[in-house]
């Protein structure tokens, strides 16, 4: 039973054993932790070291510092605007269109099976 549970899983072109992976991960973290121990200990709380530095400008309120969801990936959506325009046109939110897509798929399948 136990050996069945922890056995390696073959995908036909590779294998995957999460337990081995976890072990490797733990070892990696250990190494990182040890390396981290070699670092400098000059960080002092309560001094200017912990202040945010915005090119000399004063820091905004906390609320405004948070990047809103709308602005995350702005560049991605902007550069793929044509694709998004197409998708937006597709998602009209009109229930007739939803059914129309169904009719279209049915028509395409009819054509494929009818022609062949």
């Amino acid at each position, binding site marked *: 039973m136990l050996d069945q549970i922890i056995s390696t899983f073959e995908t036909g072109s590779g294998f995957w054993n999460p337990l081995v992976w976890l072990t490797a991960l733990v070892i990696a973290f250990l190494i990182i932790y040890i390396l981290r121990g070699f670092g400098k200990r000059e960080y002092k709380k309560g001094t200017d070291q912990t202040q945010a530095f915005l090119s000399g400008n004063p820091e905004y309120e906390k609320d405004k510092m948070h990047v809103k969801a709308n602005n995350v990936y702005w560049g991605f959506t902007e550069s793929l605007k044509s694709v998004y325009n197409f998708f937006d046109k597709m998602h009209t939110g009109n229930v007739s*269109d939803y059914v*129309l897509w169904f*009719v*279209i798929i*049915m*028509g*395409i399948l*009819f*054509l494929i099976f*009818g022609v062949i």
Partner: protein
Amino acid sequence: MSKRNFAAVIFFTIVAVFLFFTALMMHPFGIFDDNNQPEMDDRIIDNSQTETGANNAVTGVVFDYRGFDTLGEATVLFTAVAGVILVFRRLKK
């Protein structure tokens, strides 16, 4: 005509044509020839009195042979009633 309606008309026509042919290809209305005998229904007609005791074969089918469907159907109605009452319930303000 908008682009949407144009596509809609085209695909609608395709579907219509194929469904129309479906109508033509079905077995002739009301005629069951030798290799197309309704075995299941004939068996029900022959045995509904002796197996279910119902003179009405349709009721025999509804409540005995396919009784589970009727349970599902009753459940559908129950669901709809529950749904309608749920949708029109008083919301707490």
